């Protein structure tokens, strides 16, 4: 799992007695430390033992609207994200008894029992909602009227699944996962609970994209890649055109260093929830701001202003919007077809000729050497 293998604790060459003592001592230390660090956190968060039932993958039904409802909790994964410290009932608030009635929808904007350390306030995702509501993805327009097809506009769960940490190790070169050696430095002082491990994961996960670029594109494609959605909102197939760019290609080959949707559609350094329409003068994709977006200090900072006129979302079939691309493509396709089909025909005929090499409809005298030479020399005048 990418975690560094355990250090060998003792050498086999050491004398047995020594080895035994050392092993015992280490065992005791680990045992004691383990007692401190490894409080069985599952039990701690799941006081009501919800997983007694919810650990079964088959716990599911089809609801009245024909939707598949799955009530399974993968504990291993649940414990790998920032929500691990939250009790089930912190989000599923209407559940007061066990066994319980069908639970209500979870609201992400409630205050949970955690205290946000910087401001000593109850933690909530409500500020994110505020940003989202000011963005192009809000159901409401600026006047506060409901937009057309309001059900198409996303809420938290349309883009977010239960978050998972993507910790990084910088200890001996950069790699994915937790550096146990790095963590041991934290644990020198912060021994209580899983604090050090959680804090480590929490911070290092945010030093990189919390999701791979490829996954980001897929999230946007859930809506923006749907032809009916594009038609309803009069949008181009931006997913397709993005994938045709070198950015898109690099991402499809697993690069996380190149630009994905969020890198261009969010003002550099702002919350990823603040995507705006290119018509807004403050948008990163507004024609006056594109250059600044491309030339931000992590991307094309060496580029000139003129890079902004590069057309990222080219639709090669749209002659009106992208005439240059359309007609260039026409030319090259024509050239390709002409050259290749000419030779396909010639080669086919040549093969056909070889089947009956000595046959001919019109008989001629075979050429003699002299006539060949004569014929030839006319071109070699100089």
């Amino acid at each position, binding site marked *: 799992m990418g975690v560094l293998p355990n250090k060998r604790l003792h050498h086999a060459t050491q004398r047995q007695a020594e080895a035994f003592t050392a092993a015992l001592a280490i065992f005791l230390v680990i045992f004691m430390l383990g007692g401190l660090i490894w409080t069985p956190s599952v039990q701690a968060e799941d006081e009501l033992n919800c997983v007694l039932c919810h650990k079964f993958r088959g716990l599911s039904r089809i609801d009245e609207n024909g939707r598949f409802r799955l009530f399974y909790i993968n504990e291993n994964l649940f414990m790998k994200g920032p929500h691990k410290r939250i009790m089930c009932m912190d989000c599923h608030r209407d559940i007061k008894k066990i066994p319980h009635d069908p639970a209500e929808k979870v609201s992400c904007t409630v205050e949970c029992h955690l205290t946000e350390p910087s401001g000593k306030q109850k933690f909530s995702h409500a500020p994110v909602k505020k940003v989202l509501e000011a963005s192009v993805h809000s159901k409401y327009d600026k006047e506060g009227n409901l937009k057309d097809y309001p059900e198409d506009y996303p809420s938290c769960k349309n883009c977010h699944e239960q978050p998972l940490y993507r910790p990084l190790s910088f200890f001996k070169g950069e790699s994915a996962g937790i550096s146990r050696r790095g963590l041991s430095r934290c644990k020198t002082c912060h021994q209580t609970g899983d604090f050090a491990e959680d804090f480590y994961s929490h911070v290092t996960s945010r030093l990189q994209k919390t999701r791979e670029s490829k996954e980001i594109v897929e999230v946007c494609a859930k809506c923006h890649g749907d032809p009916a959605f594009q038609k309803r909102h009069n949008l181009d197939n931006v997913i397709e055109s993005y994938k045709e760019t070198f950015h*898109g290609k690099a991402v499809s080959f697993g690069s996380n260093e190149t630009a994905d949707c969020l890198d261009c559609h969010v003002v550099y350094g702002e919350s990823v929830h603040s995507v705006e329409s290119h018509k807004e003068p403050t948008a990163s994709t507004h024609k006056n701001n594109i250059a600044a977006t491309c030339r931000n200090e992590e991307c094309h900072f060496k580029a000139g202003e003129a890079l902004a006129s590069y057309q990222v979302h080219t639709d090669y079939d749209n002659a009106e919007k992208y005439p240059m691309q359309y007609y260039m493509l026409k030319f090259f396709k024509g050239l390709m077809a002409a050259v290749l089909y000419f030779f396909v025909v010639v080669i086919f005929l040549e093969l056909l000729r070889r089947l009956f090499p000595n046959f001919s409809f019109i008989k001629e005298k*075979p050429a003699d050497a002299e006539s060949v*030479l004569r014929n030839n020399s006319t071109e070699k005048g100089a």
Partner: protein
Amino acid sequence: MQNKYPRINYRNGKRFFFRFSLLQRIQHVILFSCVITLGLTGFPQRYYNEEWAKPLFTFMGGIDVAPWIHRGAGSVLLALFFFHTGYWMFLFFRNRIKPLIEQRTLSPVTFFKAFLAMEMMPNGKDGRDIIQMFKWLLYLSPKPPQYDRISWKEKFDYFAPYWGIPILGPAGMALWFRDEFSQVLPGWLLNAFYIMHTDEALLAGLFLFFVHWYNVHYAPEKFPLGTVFLTGYLSEADMIHEHYAEYIEAMTESGLEHEIKPQGHH
């Protein structure tokens, strides 16, 4: 040159006819190594969505390495293009212009004539050869075309990269140095260069794989491997088949008129 590479060479009692000098063969090896490398690292990017693209691209080093291999091979190819341009200019001067200077007959007209007389230049005989070829292909003549030292097909093969590289190379360079490029030229030109680069590459790839390889490897008498690109010499049978005019000239020049074989099949 004539001394270094005799026009007719004998090996195991068989005649072989001179085609390409060592330097030319080296240029060709560099050319095709670069083109194959460029293809293997480039086409997975064009067809990123196809099933074969990902494994091939990973094999070529993945997103962190393969693009650099691509750029490296492209740079070598572009350098080869410049070298080759200098190379033919040198040969042109030494073999065709210097004699004119020595004879004191150099004028714009003679220069132009000398230029057109270079063996790679398309000429009237190519036109007549193509007509004869179609006559022969359509069973309207028993006589296959009698190509000179460089047939029209080979000229086409030659000019394909010689036109392709100046299109692909600078376009690739612009996409590579897009940031520096955009200091001087507008970004939308990159859109144009992208199409030029990828479509011209596709044409080259499809052409080389089928047409060129058919001519030199797949054709029944060549299969599985034509060896002239390695040895520089062509066998008598192939010579008769492909360059009959050149064959007769070479035989006549070497005083072997009486041993000239007819251009029949088998």
